């Protein structure tokens, strides 16, 4: 099993390398360069000044040279400076926002798991019951409603009309600390968290239902019954672990889905995470920031898949030895 995990980690390295090429390539292909984003807003600057600046920044060097300059500084942990925020370092800009996005993602994932898995199991045990039908109905609605639209409705009803939850931000008053701040943060995360997790919850509920139903009808469950095992043993020992195998694989992708969903959801709730920063940086052509965020999101997705593969091998013995 360790062999398997080590092999998976080794595959991670070339994938990371490919990711840097894609991120760098996309930034190169995007219209304009690091200077036009700043300069277009200022027609008074002499075009010759750009040329001098381009030369100074090394933007006229051949692309491979630029790539190796970028990747060697990234490898040393230097993500460069923002072109828009008065040259503040990218790392500094990203730091606080990365944490916010990770919290939101984890919170949303937690809601998804807590809601979807028990309901999915219940639906499978009592198919065609009232709760099963309600869950199915909710599932289709959850999948059909776009994130941003649900977010807007949630803000209008639950925040503006009912005033139960704050509509935006992460903290009511800056400078809160301790337990109070923690609870306030959670309070702020509920609406964006549910919005972000809506589609995932619906998907996992459906998957869990069909997986559990499938496993309950399998031969080895019949064997367990013939052995006289109790219903709870059959459900929690024999069924659950098998039903979770495909769910775990999906979870690996879910990290990517959550992060990309976060770009839009954060925008709707004006939540200061990577998503809002990413959108504003794209608009401002702040390529160092865009590249850094794309790299981080890419790495998180790769890590998500790596974790899924590792969990997968723990839960399913058939994977380990192949």
């Amino acid at each position, binding site marked *: 099993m360790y062999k398997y995990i080590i092999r998976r980690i080794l595959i991670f390295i070339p994938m990371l390398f490919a990711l840097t090429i894609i991120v760098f390539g996309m930034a190169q292909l995007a219209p304009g360069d690091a200077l036009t984003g700043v300069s277009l807003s200022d027609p008074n600057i002499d075009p010759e000044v750009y040329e001098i600046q381009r030369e100074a920044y090394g933007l006229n060097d051949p692309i491979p040279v630029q790539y190796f300059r970028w990747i060697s500084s990234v490898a040393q942990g230097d993500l460069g400076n923002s072109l828009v925020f008065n040259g503040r370092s990218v790392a500094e800009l990203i730091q606080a926002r990365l944490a916010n996005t990770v919290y939101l993602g984890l919170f949303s994932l937690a809601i998804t798991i807590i809601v979807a898995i028990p309901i999915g199991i219940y639906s499978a045990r009592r198919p065609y019951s009232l709760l099963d039908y309600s869950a199915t109905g909710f599932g289709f609605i959850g999948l059909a409603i776009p994130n941003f639209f649900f977010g807007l409705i949630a803000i209008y009803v639950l925040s503006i009309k009912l005033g139960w939850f704050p509509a935006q931000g992460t903290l009511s008053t800056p400078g809160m600390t301790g337990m109070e701040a923690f609870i306030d943060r959670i309070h702020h995360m509920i609406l964006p968290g549910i919005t972000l997790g809506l589609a995932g919850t619906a998907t996992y509920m459906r998957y869990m239902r069909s997986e559990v139903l499938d496993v309950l009808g399998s*031969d*080895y469950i019949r064997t367990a019954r*013939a052995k006289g*095992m109790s219903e709870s043993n059959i459900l929690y*020992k024999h069924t659950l672990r098998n039903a979770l195998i495909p769910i775990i694989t999906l979870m690996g992708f879910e990290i990517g889905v959550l992060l990309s969903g976060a770009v839009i959801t954060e925008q709707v709730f004006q939540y200061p995470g990577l998503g809002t920063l990413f959108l504003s940086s794209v608009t401002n052509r702040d390529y160092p920031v865009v590249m850094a965020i794309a790299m981080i999101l890419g790495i998180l997705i790769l890590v998500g898949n790596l974790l899924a593969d590792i969990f997968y091998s723990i839960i399913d*013995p058939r994977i380990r*030895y192949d």
Partner: protein
Amino acid sequence: MKNDPVLEVDQLQTYFYLRDNKVAKAVDGISFSILPGETVAIVGESGSGKSITALSIMKLINKPGRIVEGKILLDGEEIHRLSPKQMTKIRGNDIAMIFQEPMTSLNPVYTIGNQIVEIIRKHQNKSKNEAMERAIQLLKTVGIPRAEEIMKEYPHQLSGGMRQRVMIAMAISCDPKLLIADEPTTALDVTIQAQILDLMVEMKERFQMAVLLITHDIGIVSEYADHVLVMYGGQIVEQASAQVLLKDTKHPYTTGLLESLPNIDEDVDRLGTIKGTVPPAYDFPTGCRFSSRCPHVMEKCKLSNPELIEVDKDHFVRCYLYERKEGQ
């Protein structure tokens, strides 16, 4: 040997309530009994109700199926009256069952040891270590080499024959009174089939179990069964001791099954077949259920279903061909 039967099934009816008010009479009035140490075989094609009979005895019929009528007595105890919870104490303990598909009958995510220890600890008051020792001993009993190592292995690491041995080890782990084997060798290689059947015979003798062997292979009946029930359309159509049934076959269906077997002593170009297929259990023909496929069908057969009658001592047949003789 005691003469009280281990298992008595009396007028068992298991119906499946399908959509559009269709009722599939999968098992329709089956009665038989098994004496201690006896092997009774149920023979029939797919869809004749053999497996449903077995699952009914285990009370493992799922919705929309239900045992509608009938008594099931295990050592005189009316187990058809027991609650699902009480049944968990019977299953695996007094009645054990092995299935057709050894490839999928073991849980893929738990070790062999885990799955054997589980049943021992469920029914017997043993510590984990005692149960482990017992499991290793059982694996050795069923002829598995390297038992200690196999305990830690997963089902996918074993061959089909080995898995079926594990299933047998599990089945005999709590000294059941009755072992139900539902087509235990159908999914195995021919060379392994005999080994597994011989192992079952050995275990039966060693542990004094009664065996209910379900098979569609009438060929293995002569060698392994004492008594045979031939099922068709959820009913018994012929019932006799194995010897009598094979020598003095009465029912056209049984004859058809026997003719479809290759015989090493005869040189034939073509094996016999029974034309058509088993009709679905919700759509049996009125009259004799075999009438749609029977080579000897008469007008009478299409009108009413014959009763199961005793044509010789302990030889029962459900066919009008023999009722006529009876009247003479």
